[in-house]
């Protein structure tokens, strides 16, 4: 696992998260390098979430939201796209390749598309190489678990 890239996927509860679930139900094969982190909407995403992921040493980040025009909260995915662009500017200034971060749009019915996105990103990150900020594997997994718990807390707050 140490040589394999690790990718964090911020997935919208209403589309990409369901699509990832569907990909599993369909028994689709895709690289196991991705850790899925559920958000109530990609509009919940802030630039600092994305930077926090890279600071913890992940090699790449996927932001996966609803199809444009199909956001459950009307325009959360459009806002997320602009924030992703802003975060990419920061990455360039920091000295990391902006290509390590990408936003995708898909619907909850697109399990195969989710598998394709993960495959594409894993191939891209393998080409770029490991993040120069990557700690050892156990610290990295712990960092991602912390972020995942924070996201679930957010989601629980959203349901109340």
């Amino acid at each position, binding site marked *: 696992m140490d040589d394999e890239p690790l990718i964090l996927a911020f997935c919208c509860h209403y589309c990409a998260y369901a699509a990832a679930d569907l990909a599993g139900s369909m028994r689709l094969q895709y690289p196991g390098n991705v850790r899925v982190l559920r958000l109530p909407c990609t509009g919940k995403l802030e630039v600092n979430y994305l*930077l926090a992921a*890279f600071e913890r040493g992940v090699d790449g980040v996927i932001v996966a939201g609803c199809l444009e025009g199909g956001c459950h909260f009307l325009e959360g995915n459009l806002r997320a796209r602009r924030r992703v662009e802003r975060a990419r500017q920061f990455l360039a*200034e*920091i*000295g990391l390749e902006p290509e390590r971060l990408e936003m995708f749009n898909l619907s909850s019915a697109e399990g195969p598309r989710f598998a394709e996105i993960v495959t594409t990103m894993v191939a891209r990150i393998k080409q770029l190489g490991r993040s120069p900020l990557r700690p050892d594997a156990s610290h990295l997994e712990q960092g991602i678990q912390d972020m995942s718990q924070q996201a679930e807390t957010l989601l629980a707050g959203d349901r109340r």
Partner: protein
Amino acid sequence: MIVADRKKIPEIRDLIQSHRRVLLVGCGTCVTVCLAGGEREVGILGSALRMSLRLAGHADTVVDECTIERQCEDAFIDILAPRVSEYDAVCSLGCGAGVQALAERFPQTPVYPGLNTQFMGILESQGVWTEKCAGCGNCRLGEFVGICPLTRCAKRLLNGPCGGSQDGVCEVNPDLECGWQLISDRARNLGVTDKLNEIAPPHDWSTGLDGGPRRVVREDQCIAGLGPKA
């Protein structure tokens, strides 16, 4: 409000990289509203700087974050004092006044700016701020129907418009509205165009910045016996 925008990460990194422990200090007033130096921006900058420092070979530099309500007043800076003593340097995300207030309050600690302070202005539309006041110390908005030609006219003309005003746009920049067109339109709406027939005398810049930093003194508010220095 005072409008500022962020400096690039490499510039800030170069300023602070010789220090071991750096405290980023945000300000909860103007720069929070213009999305340049509030709590969220401090978090983003902190994360970005830590990564940038690690990549530049300064992994041992500690960068921590905090935000106070207002950097330009000593009463609010007091809360910060115990924390600052634990750091080698401070990087302020306040406006220029905030940076200098921290520098005065902490004479033993280097204080660096994290923002470029731009101007006094207002939110024009979401994400867009525009300059409205040059702080000349001698307000003449009453003569110009509430639109400042010193700020809004690219040539600071007090008797405009000039020949470069075309279809309401300034010749200096096609994205710039002609200040004098705005003044004329508003005067017409208010029915006071005759006001603009008077020749406006030259501006008295003696109240401007050229004489060094300006002061406003309210004797009735000063502490008795201590005078304006207190």
